[in-house]
Each structure stands twice: as C-alpha cells, then as structure tokens.
C-alpha cells in the first residue's frame, strides 16, 4: 500500500547562537505540500529557546500581522456567505427588479 505523505508538518530548530553566555536556538514550523510536479513550503518562526545559567526558557513569537490578515479573510468570507444567502432569499421572494 502506498503511503500518501503529501502534506508534512514539522518543527525545526535552527543553529544555536551564543552571545554573552546566552544561547539562543531559533525554532520554526514548516508545512510542506509535495505533489508529483510541484510543491509549496510554508515556513514560519514559532519561538526561541533561551539557555542562560543552566536555565531553559522559551519565548514564543507572535505574529499580529498574520492574525489581522486571517481576521480580514474570515470577515470577508462570512460577509460573502451572508450576501449569497440574502441574494437567494430576495430572488425566491421575487424581489429583484428587471
């Protein structure tokens, strides 16, 4: 049986950087869509791992721009669905003028 593994999602750690006794390891999330004749790779930073004085801390990286863009897309999709519903209702009631 062929295993279909076209979409992959994984967390990747980058090369650690040490500065002032602080070691920072960048982390990112990679989503890969591989098709026979093409593919898409989406790679975004998720956070950084900080090691200082034998303490390990993770700071996550928020992306406000992405959330605002997602909100705008959701809003426009909702509005489109409402508009389609409204158009169908008006059409069924014979409300359109010719």
């Amino acid at each position: 049986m062929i295993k279909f593994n076209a979409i992959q999602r994984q967390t990747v750690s980058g090369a650690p950087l040490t500065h002032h006794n602080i070691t920072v390891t960048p982390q990112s999330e990679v989503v890969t869509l591989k098709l026979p004749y093409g593919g898409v790779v989406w790679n975004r930073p998720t956070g950084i791992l900080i090691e200082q004085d034998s303490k390990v801390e993770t700071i996550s990286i928020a992306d406000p721009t992405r959330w605002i863009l997602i909100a705008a897309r959701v809003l426009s999709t909702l509005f489109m669905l409402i508009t389609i519903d409204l158009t169908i209702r008006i059409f069924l009631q014979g409300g359109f003028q010719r």
Partner: protein
Amino acid sequence: MTQETDVFDRISEEQAKNRHMLEKLLSFAESGSVYSEPVTRGDYAVITASEVTVGMAVGYGMGEAEAEDDGDGGGGGGGGGAYGRPVAVVSIGPDGVQVKEVVDPTKIALALFTTIGAMFLMLRQIFKAVGV
C-alpha cells in the same frame, strides 16, 4: 521509431532534472530560511525572523505523430514564486533576550481596504438589484 524514443528519453531526463531541482529548492525553503544570520554591533547581536513561502510547479506534454511523415513532439514549462515577510526581531544583549514583533501596516491597510471595498461593492449590487 528511434526519433520517437529519443524525444521521450529526453523528456524523461528533463523531468528527472526538474524534479531534483524542485526537491533542492523546496528543501532550501524548509531549513534555515526563516532566521537570518546574526548581525553583531557592540554588545548586541540581532537576528530577524521571517515567514517564508515558496511554491513551484512544472508541467510536461508530449504528442505522437498521426502520420508517418509528421514528427513527434514534446514540451514543458514551469513556474514558481517566493514570498517573505518579516515577523520579529530578536536582540541578544547584556540585558538579556528581547523579541520585538514586526507589524506590517501596509499589508494590514491593503487587506482591510480590499475587504471593505469588496463588501461595499457587493452591497451596492444587491441594493441596486432590489431597487433601494
């Protein structure tokens, strides 16, 4: 027949090459493209974090001749694009590690204007059709 085999062999070779190139380009986008090389100035080291999207595809086609005198043929094409957007700046200094998110006002403004514009146009068409 030999000419036909040559064409198909050549296309298969090109397909293999392009697939290899695709794999290489996609693996490049998978690793190490999100965080930049550190820039050190005095006591501070700064790295930037970006969202990276890469997409590409190739296509092929080939045709056999219907008549003996006609030649066989094949062709291919491909395309792709890459997109990057800064997300955050990580600064490492004597006072610790600081992460500052990057907000892209141009992108947000464009998205909002497009959304509001599309909504306005849809409503105007409905009101026009209803006769309001």
